[in-house]
């Protein structure tokens, strides 16, 4: 029987820690995409007016329509990214789970905004749990608008065991 690994930290992780990826830019956020998003996430009820009614939105402190905070301006990329395939019969250190996410929100997204995103592996920790040796890795993904203002910072927790 092969020896069980004593760590799941890889050289790739060590090399990439706190190394931020090159920024990727969204297409300009479109009002119609905001409205469709709001309809989808409030379905079957009508979404709040701040997401679709320009006259109402002008009266708010935002001065215009904003996007729901979960709006994704990076949906529908071209060219299409390759499909991800989960490994079959994964061994120790190859099984993965989504450990959750925390967003810190900054300014709202608005029609016409161009959002940039960049990410980095920022931390990890390992422990032996009910699944055996398990590593929790923390990746930060920062979104900024065209003025350099933070839209959101997401810390995603990846679990590998």
């Amino acid at each position: 029987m092969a020896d069980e690994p004593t760590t799941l930290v890889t050289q790739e992780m060590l090399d990439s820690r706190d190394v931020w990826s090159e920024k990727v830019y969204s297409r300009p956020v479109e009002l119609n995409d905001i409205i469709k998003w709001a309809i989808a996430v409030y379905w079957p009820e009508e979404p709040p007016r701040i997401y679709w009614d320009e006259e109402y939105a002008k009266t708010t402190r935002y001065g215009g329509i904003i996007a729901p905070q979960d709006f994704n301006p990076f949906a529908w990329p071209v060219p299409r990214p390759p499909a991800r395939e989960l490994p079959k019969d994964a061994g120790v250190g190859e099984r993965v789970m989504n450990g959750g996410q925390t967003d810190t929100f900054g300014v709202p997204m608005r029609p016409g905004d161009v959002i940039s995103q960049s990410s980095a592996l920022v931390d990890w920790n390992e422990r032996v749990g009910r699944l055996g040796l398990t590593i929790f890795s923390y990746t930060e993904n920062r979104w900024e608008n065209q003025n350099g203002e933070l839209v959101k910072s997401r810390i995603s927790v990846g679990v590998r065991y």
Partner: protein
Amino acid sequence: MAENVYFEDVNVGDDIPSFTRQTDLMHWNRYAAVNDEFVYIHMDDEAGRAAANEPGAFGMGNLRWAYLLNMLREWVGDEVDVRELGVQFRAINQKNDVLTCVGTITEKIEENGDHLVRLDTNVINQDGVATCPGHAVVALPSRG
């Protein structure tokens, strides 16, 4: 409404108004269409079962995330900032589940001129299963 809730009017231990949706392919397909999230496990019962979910296709975690934000913004109003939301995805959203987002105030914080409220949040299904434990921070207006 622009601002529904003021800092002075809430207390630790208060439950906020919940947000409920019964989800099925109508909801998931609409969400897939806007978020470009066409994955067989969310569309096809056979694929869901192949992924070890015996009932079949199941819902996206991202949609529950959206519902939590909807709950928070319906509570505080259009012009109030949700500053932070964090979740863990613990249980699957099965077809026709009735999902209820809930929140309870755990802390009131005044710092740097902000009036912040911290909440424990969750998404509970019709069987009482807590599918999505998490937390949120909201900045409320003050009467002061």
